């Protein structure tokens, strides 16, 4: 089946099986491997991307459901000249990552979080990040990073 969508501002199209997951399409067809597969059961949030402006877990969405959609992955977050997005910069500044595996999903989720809660309290950040798991348990600095980024977004 042929699908077409915009990924990080560029139109892409490909022939895929109907059962192809969006995350598989992103990683294996488009070779955008910044989006990670952690649990593959829609729990850990490492595969979080934005579809039409909303954070979703791309391991639990079919590629065909994204037909015609605007997709933003971690690769599309920084500016073309390499300037990091304020959320990425805050994660760097506040050491909001340890092994880095959950980071792309954390960042994409956090950008969506701040969009919906412009000035989030620590409590809100912790509650709203409950769909993203960090197996290093590095939550304290992640929460700090999100709070700092919210002030710059």
């Amino acid at each position: 089946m042929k699908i077409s969508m915009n990924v990080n501002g560029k139109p892409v199209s490909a022939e895929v099986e109907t059962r192809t997951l969006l995350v598989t399409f992103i990683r294996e067809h488009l070779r955008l491997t910044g989006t990670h597969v952690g649990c593959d059961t829609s729990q850990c949030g490492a595969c979080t991307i934005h579809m039409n402006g909303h954070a979703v877990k791309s391991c639990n969405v079919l590629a065909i459901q994204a037909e015609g959609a605007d997709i933003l992955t971690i690769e599309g977050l920084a500016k073309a000249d390499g300037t990091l997005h304020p959320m990425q910069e805050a994660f760097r500044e506040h050491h909001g990552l340890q092994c880095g595996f959950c980071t792309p999903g954390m960042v994409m989720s956090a950008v969506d979080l701040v969009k919906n809660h412009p000035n989030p309290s620590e409590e809100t950040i912790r509650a709203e990040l409950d769909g993203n798991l960090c197996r290093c348990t590095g939550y304290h600095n992640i929460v700090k990073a999100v709070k700092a980024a919210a002030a710059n977004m």
Partner: protein
Amino acid sequence: MYAFDYQKPKSLADAAAALSKGGDAKLLAGGQSLIAAMKLRLSAPSDLIDLGGISELSGIKVEGASITIGAMTRHAEVARSKDVLAKIPALASLAGGIGDRMVRNMGTLGGSLAHNDPVADYPAAVLGLGATVNTNKRKIAADDFFKGMFETALQADEIIVSVSFPVPKRAAYIKFKNPASRYAIVGVMAAETGSGVRVAVTGAASSVFRVAEMEKALAAKWSPDAVAGISVPAGKLNSDMHASAEYRAHLITVMARRAVEAAK
């Protein structure tokens, strides 16, 4: 995941026609339960009929003393809807507590109801608020809709179009979450509606159910104390690694008391 044929009809009539063609076709709404089940090969439909192309299935409308929510409306939209927040804050809060934020951006009201997972939140809202499920064929009262574990009154070729929630005098939904999955170990919707008091419990048994004894007590006196001494027998409740039937029975009373206290 096993292979399947896929179609995305543009109208409800086309979707119903595709669904009645036989085979083992399933409707795809947000897919937050269905796709996960297909990945585990617990579900293997021959065809997926994607409802994502039918715009009439989405949206929130205030109609007199009720709010009608389209079947394809996402949990996140219900949670932040100004109309729902103003008229049925208990429903907005319930929708905002389903799964996690990413799941709420995809998951839909109709999908949750048609699936009727025993631990889902929405069945408690529909039964507890005395809502009506509108399908492409008829209107189904909440009391007639939920039939058992993953079972509803929906016929094989019937599609949920919307759900009408009457605005209650006051209501609240309180759940005791599984800390890992966020599914309800026990969730209770307590509501004082125009047609009487309703208490609906999800997570505790094979399907959502009402607690007549609590309803009677609350009708006599709407107060947390009225339900504090009432417990549901553990006999028919679920027992699993997360909670024993006796613990769930205990939680029902506690959650009901808190829901009555929080109701507004």
